[in-house]
């Protein structure tokens, strides 16, 4: 599970507990202007993720770390597919974040409302 905060004009994602170990990352700070949108998407976990370059992929247990795809680098931190939220980015190290949030729909709505229209 990740904590997702909106502080000023940035989206701050903080990984908690052992997730830091699996994903090899503690915090991501993204300017809201670089956030293109957020979507609750339980189905994404079943799909092709790309080539893992850093982190952990135990199918059915946890997907955590950095995956390289034709579209760019994607950061994953998901145990429970039902709670997956997809955050699409621009001009960032990662092109997309797939993270787990306690209430995916409310989290996605909160990010959509906060982001600066491109």
């Amino acid at each position, binding site marked *: 599970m990740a904590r997702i905060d909106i502080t000023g004009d940035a989206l701050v994602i903080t990984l908690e507990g052992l997730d830091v170990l699996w994903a090899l990352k503690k915090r991501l700070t993204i300017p809201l202007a670089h956030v293109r*949108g957020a*979507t*609750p998407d*339980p*189905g994404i976990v079943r799909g092709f993720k790309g080539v893992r370059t850093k982190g952990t992929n135990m199918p059915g247990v946890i997907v955590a770390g950095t995956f390289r795809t034709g*579209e760019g680098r994607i950061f994953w931190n998901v145990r429970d597919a039902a709670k997956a939220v*997809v955050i*699409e980015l621009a001009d960032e190290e990662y*092109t997309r974040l797939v993270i787990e949030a306690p209430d995916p729909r409310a989290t996605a709505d909160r990010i*959509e409302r906060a982001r600066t229209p491109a």
Partner: protein
Amino acid sequence: MGRPRGFDERLAVAAAAELFAGRSYDGTSVDDLVSATGVHRGSLYKTFGSKRGLYLAALRHHVDQDVTRIAQSADPARALLGSGGEELGFLLLAAAERAAVDDEVAAEVGRALDLLDAALRPAGADPARAADLTAALLGLLLRARAQPGRATGATLLVSQ
């Protein structure tokens, strides 16, 4: 951005509009959108940013196509009622489901209502009358979903 998408964005948006019109915003998953549009999940995210981004594009498409077609027809009031609510189903659903909680949806629904107001306003008539007429006609479409044929709008159109 001028870069080829690898899929027909217009067709994808039209397919999404049909899906959202039938299943609502909350009732449509990204899995549903991937199946209905035939576009890869990653491409949907890359192009539209989010499900909401695609929803807004779909609603804009609906207003530009379906609402505009009715507004530009020779007899907009009859065209609107004649559609039986099918053609404007997405507009009605967006107004009920999303307009109160999403400013960009409210703006797009407002644009549709303005188009209908302008089309329905008799020459020289009070703009408030056109707004009331649009509201009444859309209300008839809603009513027809539960009681088809019970209220036909005949009294509204006669008194025009």
